[in-house]
């Protein structure tokens, strides 16, 4: 790794001020993404600020209104093992347990999880092929290269990468909020607005500004939370990123869907919420497979597969259907 300075933060306001003033400073928590990026020379910060000592940021708690508040420094394994999370939001615990490995889940923070960068092999390649995330303006090697793992929704000529987080898909489906502290105070970002589409500036994965730090993720109390499921399809059974995944959460009247929440992973630069499908699914019976399929299909009219990933268009619809059915069985 390149030489860098390291210091330890113990005060939130000073931490934010340091980041705001210094474009070469990066926060480090679990390190499981950043250290890999530095080894691959996809990130070359001159200074790291270790935020693990910031107080009260690792808590997992239920607020008086029933919403779940997950501190940004809580570790993936602690969130996945938490009884409240497992009972009220199984989709979150499942997404976490299907991600990475036991060792990495013990290290990785929740804030870092939703900040993790794409696994696009061109982006991670330290031979430095053209990549607009790695070197803005250099081009996109994946667009006309090997793009089996890449996006089918929302990509641009500048970038066809996907977001690798599993739990982000669950948060998107549940309309969680990202609580962010900056020098002028705190703001709450709706989860589906947190990550952005690549457009012409794929070097920006999300809407955070310099001088902002994620302090927590809040999941509103939802009746659909308990009847939820995360399904992940990948090239090996464990310890692999998703080819396609789906988070589903439902509320029912008998067999009929009163509401359905659906988001996909592995298909876009951000967790991909299926808004049209959610509308079309209202009132459909969970026993009506044809009805469910055609409702889900309404969200795929704008799918744009690349040379090597047309299979994802069909796969994603099947994964969404199965996730929906599994969630329905919990209703």
């Amino acid at each position, binding site marked *: *790794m*390149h*030489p*860098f*300075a*390291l*210091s*330890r*933060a*113990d*005060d939130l*306001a*000073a*931490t934010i*001020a*340091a980041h705001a*003033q*210094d474009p*070469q*400073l990066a926060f*480090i928590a*679990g*390190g*499981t993404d950043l*250290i*890999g990026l*530095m*080894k*691959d*020379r996809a990130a*070359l910060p*001159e*200074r*790291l*600020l*270790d935020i*693990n000592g910031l107080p009260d940021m690792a808590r997992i708690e239920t607020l008086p209104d029933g919403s779940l508040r997950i501190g940004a420094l809580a570790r993936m*394994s602690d969130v*996945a*093992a938490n009884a409240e999370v*497992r*009972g009220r939001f*199984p989709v979150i*615990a*499942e997404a976490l*347990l*299907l991600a*990475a*490995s*036991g*060792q*990495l889940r*013990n*290290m990785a923070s929740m804030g870092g999880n939703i900040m993790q960068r794409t696994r696009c092999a061109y982006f991670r390649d*330290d*031979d*430095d092929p053209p990549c607009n995330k790695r070197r803005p303006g250099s081009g996109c090697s994946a667009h006309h290269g090997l793009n089996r793992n890449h996006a089918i929704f929302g990509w641009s000529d500048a970038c066809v990468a996907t977001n690798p987080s599993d739990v982000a898909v669950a948060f998107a489906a549940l309309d969680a909020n990202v609580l962010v502290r900056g020098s002028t105070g705190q703001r709450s970002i709706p989860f589906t607005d947190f990550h952005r589409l690549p457009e012409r500036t794929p070097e920006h994965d999300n809407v955070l500004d310099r001088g902002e730090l994620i302090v927590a993720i809040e999941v509103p109390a939802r009746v659909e939370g308990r009847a939820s499921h995360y399904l992940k399809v990948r090239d090996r*059974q*464990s*310890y692999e990123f998703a080819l396609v995944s789906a988070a589903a959460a439902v509320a029912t009247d008998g067999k009929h869907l009163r509401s359905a929440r659906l988001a996909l992973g592995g298909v876009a630069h951000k967790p991909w919420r299926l808004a049209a499908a959610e509308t079309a699914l209202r009132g459909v019976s969970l026993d009506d497979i044809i009805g469910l399929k055609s409702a889900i299909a309404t969200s795929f009219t704008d799918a744009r597969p690349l040379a090597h990933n047309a299979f994802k268009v069909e796969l994603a619809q099947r994964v969404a259907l199965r996730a929906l059915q599994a969630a329905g069985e919990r209703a």
Partner: protein
Amino acid sequence: MGETNRSSRFGGTAIASGSAVVKGPDVELGRAAATQGVEPRVVSLTVNGHISTLTVEPRMTLLDALREDLGLTGTKKGCDRGECGACTVHVDGRRILSCMTLAAMQEGKRITTIEGLESNGELHPLQAAFIEHDGFQCGFCTSGQIMSGVAMIGEAKAGWPSAVATDLRRSFTIADLSGAEIRERMSGNLCRCACYPNIVQAVAEAAGRS
């Protein structure tokens, strides 16, 4: 130390960032945050029960510090990218990947490596089970497998679920630690000799015995 990139294309970038650092790494940092530079600093940690004081550059991983500075070469460097599990050690009782964390971030932490697993000359039950069940061929992944397995059994005893569970609302007990559970929980440790069936048997036996 472990500079893997041999491409000259990056020379310019590395030199540029290096010289910027030399100019004064801490000038811009907020005063309330402790400021330190790129130069080596002293870190105190407890390794296998002994307090160790190391002098490390910030960029040194815990893995390299254990192997290069402390001579504890039982912990292996496989991929050096968090993909193989060979470097697994325990920090404050939890299994982690020592290649993906910095030594300088471990101040005051309690580290256990494969060398610290035996007690009073007796192998840990999982070490004994690996021998009994022939849980290795070349042995390169073995210390990582064993460190992962020991902590994993602790996680299972603490009731942590895995992705194998069909209903996470149910509590998990060690009696639920099936072969499928062990395989899932040990999936972060790769064995290119493919000793997986024997590794699973060894872990199962140690989970029942320890």
